[in-house]
C-alpha cells in the first residue's frame, strides 16, 4: 500500500464557461514506490498540466490526488509549498538554477527552506554534489558549468530533502546527445537506488528507458504500458484515431 501517486478522476479546466479549455478530463493514475514512469504525449495532450498538478504547483479543478498518502488537492499555498519542499524534487529542461548563487548554495536552498541548520546543510549539499559527480564545482556560479553539469546540479538540488518523488520535465531537452545520455544514466542509477521517478518527455527513445510508459492525449490516458498496478479504469470510450495511429 505504498502509492506515491494516486489520482482519481483528476480534471483541470482553464478559463471559464465560454472559453473553457479542458486540459485534463479525468485522470486515474497510480504510481508505486520505486517506479520509473515516462509520461509521454504530444504538446497539448495535457502532460504538462498533469505534471504541474502532480508537482503540487497547481491545483486540480476536480477529482482527488494523494501524494505519498497525503490528500493534497485542497491544500493552501503555504501547505503546498511545504509538500513541494519535503516530498518533491523538480528537474527542469532549462535547469532553473539561481544564476547569482554558487552551486553549493543552489543545492542548499531546499534544505534552507526545510529549516535545516547551516552546518548540516553544507555537509549534505557536499554529499549530494559528490553523488552527482561534481564535488569540485561547489563554489562556482552556474554560468561556469556545461549544460550536463548544470543538470547534475539540478538533480542534486532535487534530491536534497530525500523526496518521495522526482519529477523531471524534459531533463535532456536542452543537452547534446552525449551529456543527455550521461544524465539519463544518472536517472537510471537513481532509479536503481530506489527513487520514484516521473519523467515527462516526447522522445520515444528516452521513454523506452523507463519501466512504464503512460501516454496522454487530449487530457486522457490512452496507453499505460508496463504497469505494475491497475490498468486505466476508464478506457477510451470510442476508438481513438490517434491511438490507432500510434499503434500502427
Amino acid at each position, binding site marked *: 500500500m505504498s502509492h506515491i501517486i494516486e489520482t482519481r478522476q483528476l480534471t483541470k479546466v482553464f478559463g471559464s464557461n465560454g472559453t473553457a479549455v479542458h486540459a485534463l478530463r479525468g485522470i486515474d493514475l497510480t504510481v508505486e514506490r520505486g517506479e520509473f514512469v515516462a509520461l509521454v504525449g504530444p504538446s497539448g495532450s495535457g502532460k504538462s498540466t498533469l505534471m*504541474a498538478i502532480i*508537482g503540487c*504547483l*497547481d491545483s486540480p479543478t476536480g477529482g482527488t490526488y494523494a501524494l505519498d498518502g497525503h490528500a493534497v488537492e485542497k491544500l493552501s*499555498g*503555504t501547505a503546498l*509549498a*511545504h509538500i*513541494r*519542499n*519535503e516530498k518533491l524534487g*523538480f528537474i*527542469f529542461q532549462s535547469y*532553473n*538554477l*539561481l544564476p*547569482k*548563487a554558487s552551486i553549493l548554495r543552489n543545492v542548499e*536552498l*531546499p534544505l*534552507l*527552506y*526545510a*529549516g*535545516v*541548520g*547551516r552546518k548540516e546543510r553544507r555537509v549534505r549539499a557536499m554529499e549530494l554534489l559528490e553523488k552527482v559527480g561534481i564535488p569540485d564545482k561547489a563554489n562556482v556560479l552556474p554560468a561556469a558549468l556545461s549544460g550536463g553539469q548544470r543538470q547534475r546540479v539540478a538533480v542534486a*538540488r*532535487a534530491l536534497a*530533502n530525500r523526496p518521495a518523488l522526482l519529477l523531471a520535465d524534459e531533463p535532456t531537452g536542452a543537452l547534446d546527445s552525449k551529456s543527455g545520455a550521461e544524465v539519463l544514466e544518472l536517472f537510471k542509477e537513481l532509479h536503481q537506488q530506489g527513487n520514484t521517478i516521473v519523467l515527462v518527455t516526447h522522445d520515444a527513445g528516452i521513454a523506452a528507458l523507463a519501466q512504464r510508459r503512460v501516454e496522454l492525449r487530449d487530457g486522457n490516458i490512452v496507453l499505460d504500458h508496463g504497469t505494475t498496478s491497475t490498468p486505466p479504469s476508464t478506457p477510451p470510450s470510442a476508438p481513438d484515431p490517434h491511438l490507432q495511429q500510434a499503434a500502427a
Partner: protein
Amino acid sequence: MSRTGAFSERFRNAWVEMRENFGRSTLQALGVMLGVASVLGGFSISDSQRKRSDEAWMKLGGMDKLNVQPAAAVTDSQPSALQMANLGLRSNDATGGEELDSKSVQGVSVQKNARARVISPSADQERALTGIGGDYLPLNGYEIEKGRGFAAEDIAKASPVAILGFEAASVFFPTGEAVGQTMRVGSTPVTVIGVLKEKVFRFRNSQGNRFAWRNRIVALPSTLVSTRMQGDAYRRLDRVVFRIPDLNVMQKFTTGLTQLLKSNHRGQADFRIDDIGARIRKRRSQGDVYNVIFMLSGVLSLIGGGMVNVNIQMATLKERVREVGVKMAIGASGREVFKEFMTEALLITGFGSFVGLFLGIAFSKVITAAIGIPLFMKADSFVWATGLAVAFGFVFALFPAFKASRLSPMEALRYE
C-alpha cells in the same frame, strides 16, 4: 530562525542582489538618501539657529527673568486725581517683590534711566545714563574687568561713583587707566570705580557685534540718578527685574506680585509685568514650525523616493518572476518570498539612510558655515531621520513584496 541562519541567508541574498544590480539599487537608495539628508539637515540647521539664539539670551543674563516696567494707567481722557497721585514703580516694589518668595527669587535688579552730558578730559558727549541697583550687573550678563562694582553703601548713600562699559571707558579715557579718574556727569563730578568687560556676540561670523550698544553703558547708582540727575524725591524706577530660575514658580509669583504692586500703587495697574521666558518659549514654538516644514519636505522626498522604489521593484519583479517560480517549486512559501523581497527593500533603505545621514551632516555643515553659525546636531534628529526613512521604506516595500509572494508557482515557472 537564528538556528538555521535563514535570516542571514536572506540578508546575504539581498546583499548579492543589491551588489549585482548596483545601478538600480543606487537609484532606489537615492530617494531614501535625500529624504534622510533633508530631515537631518533641516532639523540640524534649525537646531543650530535656535541654539545660537539661546546663547544670545544667556549672554544677556539668562531667560529666567521677570520684567516689571511702569505703564500708563491713563488710557484716554484726563487722568483722575488718584492717577495723578500715583507714584509709579519704586524701590519698595523691588524689595516687597523679593520678600514675596525670597527662596525662589535669586536676584533683583532695579534700573533708572536718564540722559546727561558726560565730560572727561578726553571727551564731551551727550550720553544715556543707567542708574542701577541690586543685581543689575549679573542679571544683564555684565562682568567687572577692572576695579569693583557698587557696594550696598554706594546705592544707599547715592555715592558719586560710576562704572563704565568697555566702549565708554575707551571713549572717555582713551589714554589709559579709567578706574580712579573723575568725570563730570551733568553737574555732578563722579569717580570711576570700575570698568566692565567687553561684550561681544555675533549671531553669524560675518555680522557685526550685536552687543556693541551694551558696551556704551555709563552706570551710576540708581539713587544717584533719581536724586541728582532727575531731581526725583520719590526715587521712581524705570525697571525692576526678578530672576526666578524655577519656571514653575514664575506663574504663581507673577500673580502675587501683581497683587502686591496693585496695593502698593493704590489699586492702579500702572505697571506691566512680562515674563521673558514666556516670550522666548513663544519664539521657540515659532521655530517648531520650521521643524514641521523640514520634516514635511523630508517626508515628501521619502514618499517620492518610495514611489520610485515601488515602480522599480515592480519592474524588477517582472525580471525575477522565474526566479520566484523556481524558489517556490523547491519549497519556498509565499511568506518566505515576501520576507526575501522585504529584506532586499529594507537593506536598500538601510544603506540609503546610512549614506543619507552623512549627506545630511555634510549638508548641515555647508549651510551653517555659509550663514556663519556653529553647527549643533541633536541625537533626536538622527533618530527622526532614520526612523522616518525606515518607516516609509517598510510601507513602500510591502506592495511589491506582497505581489511577489502571491505569484502562482506554475505561472511563474512558465513566465518568459
